[in-house]
Each structure stands twice: as C-alpha cells, then as structure tokens.
C-alpha cells in the first residue's frame, strides 16, 4: 500500500442547519491525481476550505501525513506543505505577476526585521533566491514574459496559470486545484491536463482537483470522489464510476 498523504475521517461542516459536508471519509495516496466531482452545492469547495483551515470543521479529523490539521491557522497549514488555487481567481491584481509569486514565498523566506533594516547579506541572498525561484517557476509555466505585468491586467486563462504558479511557490507536497478548467475550451483543457501531469512530475506533487469538466476528470484522475448534497456518494477509478448507478442518478436523474 502506498503512503496516505491526506486523510479525512468523519468530517462534518455545518453552517447552522445546513450540512455543507456530512460525514466525509477518504484518503489520498501520495503521488495520485485525486478528483472530487459532484453537482453544484455538493460541498466540493467546502472540503478544500476545511483542509486549508478557512473553516474549522464541526466534527471529524483531517490529517496531513500524521499531523492533525483541524485547528491550525491557514498559513500554518500552507507552511506544512499544502497549497491551493481558487474557484474564482484570487490574485493580488494590483501587484505584478512576479510580486504575486514572491508573496507566496513568505513562510520560507528566512530573514527578520533586523535583516531588513540593516540590509544584511542574508536579506540580499534570500531576496535573490526567492526572485530566482519565482522566475524558474514562471519559466516552467511559460509565463516569464508576463513577469512585470499587473496580474489583474492578464487574460483569464493566464491568470489561472499564474495562480497555479503562485501556489507552487508555497513549496507544497499537496496541491489543491479548485475548478482549474472552468471556462476553458476543449483544446485548452487538453493543454491543462498535460500541464497538471507535468507539474506533478516536476514538483513531486499529490494533486486534488475539483472539476466539472469530464474531459479533465476522466483523463487524468486516478481516483475520484463523488459528492452529492454534502454526502459521499461513491469513490473509485473513472471506469468504475462510469457504470455506477448512484452516480448516474445524481448526474442524470432516475431512469424510470
């Protein structure tokens, strides 16, 4: 059995009377591309939000390796090695692309206030290092030309890629992608599929991806979790799910 990198045990998240996710249980193996699908409002993004500490789950436990994440602040969780993108892009629009990436280096930039005011050699070295690392990642994603452009001025597709680049700057082991293919045409989705597999290879990542686009999910996910109304409906490989009656019912309605 491969190593489990992220596991959720009986996780519930209630907002008042609304059960956004209800008793969710799953484990992700290291190195996998793990898909989460389900109709709108099924609780997919809520799962990402409880993993990254935006919400504190009502009950249940979330583990990263063997660390309990439940009550940690988001920045501590990110620092441990989980990074994410957002469903509706949340770049720092007034900053340049390069600065967006540099901001994401925050937790592993090793200098203090004294280094800043004294302009110490450690400060210069660290600034140099994060700039070089950011540019390396931009080159890898073919974004280096846009380095000095304001992030808010870029077209939609490029903003999505900058968001992935920014998440990579957090040096994650696990990358959470929230609808990376939203609004893309089939050709762009094919490119994105290649990109996701490429960054998994290059950065040695485990990837969790929320997506509606079946072209993406069926092609690159090795295991898929299906949610409906906050509950786990099924889990399995793409081929297993294609013929699962419960899944078909949730997506297409009852047959008789």
């Amino acid at each position: 059995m491969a190593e489990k990198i992220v596991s959720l045990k009986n996780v519930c998240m209630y907002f008042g009377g609304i059960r956004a996710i209800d008793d969710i249980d799953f484990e992700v193996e290291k190195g996998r591309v793990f898909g989460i699908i389900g109709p709108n409002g099924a609780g997919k993004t809520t799962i990402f939000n409880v993993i990254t500490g935006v919400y504190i789950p009502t009950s249940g436990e979330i583990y990263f390796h063997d660390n309990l994440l439940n009550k940690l602040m988001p920045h501590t969780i990110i620092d441990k090695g989980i990074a994410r993108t957002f469903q509706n892009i949340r770049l720092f629009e007034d900053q340049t692309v390069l600065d967006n990436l540099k901001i994401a280096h925050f937790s592993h930039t090793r200098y203090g206030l004294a280094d800043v005011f004294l302009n110490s050699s450690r400060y210069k070295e660290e600034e140099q290092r994060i700039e070089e690392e950011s540019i390396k990642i931009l080159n890898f994603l073919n974004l280096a030309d846009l380095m000095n452009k304001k992030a808010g001025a870029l077209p939609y597709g490029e903003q999505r890629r900058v968001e992935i680049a920014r998440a990579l700057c957090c040096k994650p082991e696990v990358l959470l992608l929230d609808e990376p293919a939203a609004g893309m045409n089939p050709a762009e989705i094919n490119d994105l599929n290649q990109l996701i597999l490429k960054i998994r290879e290059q950065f040695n990542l485990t990837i969790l991806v929320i997506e509606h686009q079946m072209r993406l999910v069926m092609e690159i996910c090795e295991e898929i979790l299906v949610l409906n109304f906050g509950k786990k409906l099924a889990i399995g490989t793409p081929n297993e799910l294609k013929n699962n009656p419960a899944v078909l019912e949730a997506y297409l309605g009852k047959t008789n």
Partner: protein
Amino acid sequence: MTKKNYSTGKNEFLWQLAILLAITLTLIALKEMRLVSTSFLLILQYIGIYAILTLGINIVNGYLGVFSLAHAGFMAIGAYVSAYLSKYFFTDITMFAVSIMAGAIAALLVGILVAIPSFKTKGDYLAIITLGFSLIVQSLLQNARFVGASKGLNNIPKFTNIYWVFGCLLFAVFITNRFVRSKYGRSMQAIREDETASNLVSVDVRKIKTIAFALSAFLIGISGALIGHLLGYTSPSAYGFVNIVDGLVMVYLGGTGSIVGSIFGSAAWQLIVQLLKQLDTWRWVVGGILLIFVMVFLPKGVFGNMELDDLFRIIKEKINRKEPGRGIRNG
C-alpha cells in the same frame, strides 16, 4: 510597481550620499546663513514633522489598507512621554535622542495592543474602535494631574530644530523604504488586496498587522516627540479630532502607499493651511473643498502607490509612445 528589491548597487549608494549631502548643505544654508525668515523655517519644521506623521499613518492606512484613526493617540503618547522625560529627567539636549526614542517606543508598545482588534474587525468597525482609542488617550490625559491635566505640560525644553526634524525624517524615510520593499511590505500590500488569499499563500496575517501597527505607531510617536519640543508645550486638546482629520487629509492628498506622496501631502497641506490662515475659520471650508476636488479627480491621491522612479518611468513611457504611434499612422 516594479522594484529591484535587493540590489543596492554602488551607484545607488553614491546617489543617496549625494542627496544626503545636498539636504544637509541646504539646511545649514537656510538656518545658519538666515536665507529665509524664522517663520518660514518654522513652517519647514512643521512640514518635516508632519511628513513623519504622514509616513506613519500611511503604513497602516495606505500600505496595509486598514482604516485606522489611532494616530492622534499615538502622537499624544509620543509627545507626552518624551516631553515628561526631557522636562524632569533628561534636561540636557545631548539626551534629546533618548527622549525621542522613549516616546516612540512607548507609542510602539501601545501600537501592538491596538493591532489586536484589527485581527477580527474591518472597515467602519475598526475605524470606530481606533477612534475610541484616540479619544480615550485624550481624555486620560485631560484627567491625569501629573501631566498637567487639561492644561498639559508647559516649559518643555525647546530642543527641536531643523536638523533634528530632517534627521528624524530621513530616518523615517529610510525605515519605511526598507520595510515596504521587504517581504513584510509585500505581504502588507497583499493583505490590502485580499486578506484570505494572502493567508492561504502562507502569509501570517496577524504577525504582519502587528508589525505594521507597531512601526506606524513608532514613527507617529517620533513626530509627537518632535512637535512637543518644538512648541515648548503640549496639551490634550492638540490630539483630538482636528489632528485626526489633518493626518488623514495629508495621507489621502499625497497618496496612499507612497513615501514621496507622504512628504508631498504634508508639504502641500501645511503650505495650504499657512496660506489660508487669513481666512480664519473659513480655511476649513476652502481646505475641505480642495480635498473634495482631489478625491474626485485623483482618488488615490497625487502619488497613489507611486514613488518617484515609477513617475519617471511613466513619463518616459508616455514620451516614447508618441513616436511609434506616429510611425504607425504614416505606415
């Protein structure tokens, strides 16, 4: 804002040295050779002191994007602590730097406390909390007998002169400049745009807010210390609503998130106030109308999020753009 952050080349260092020398020589010329009148020299000192105040406010209200009204309180703390010390303990001018530092550090410590409400509240609510803080400081001072209650402290030694003012201003510009270009400054601007997103790219939001408030209070404390020793007295009434509004006007006139803007805002507003002095109470009306015009036509202030090099770059781009434009029309 494209900035080379880490490379302070030799050339740049020489430039800084040259500018420093030029400023020193100008000040000596102005003061010792009496090139300008004493009243103008006084206005220059006001400009310098308020520029330090504006820089301090700009860190929280501009770069961090948190609407705080705590600056009157910080300024009062800086003024009172330093004035008390140099009146009763450090009566010699050689110890003036110690008094200033003590005032600024007292303000810094209080600033750390004031940062705490900003963790959970935002916008109008935080404005009200910080306004409350300023008014609490004012009314505490009005009732504290050992600092003269509502009459305030008198006979403070008048240590402040133009060298101290511009020395402190250079120090404040240096500190702010280094700070906003570091990871801390970048994070502040990220928090201004999207707090949750910054938290989710590993920025420790609470730490950054605390540091920003502390540094802001520190600089404002310095300005308070200087003004007390310039006037020779300090009273609670100076740190009320007028002071709060004055500070905000200078920040939003000069430009949020800009060092040059802070200095410009302070200079412009102090000169306007002096020019309008004959108008008596009406100057607040004229000043207010001026401010409305600035807000309508330049909502980010004159230098919003820009420094001098950004301005030069934009001007250069505008000049360069004309020529290829003509070329296209010809072809």
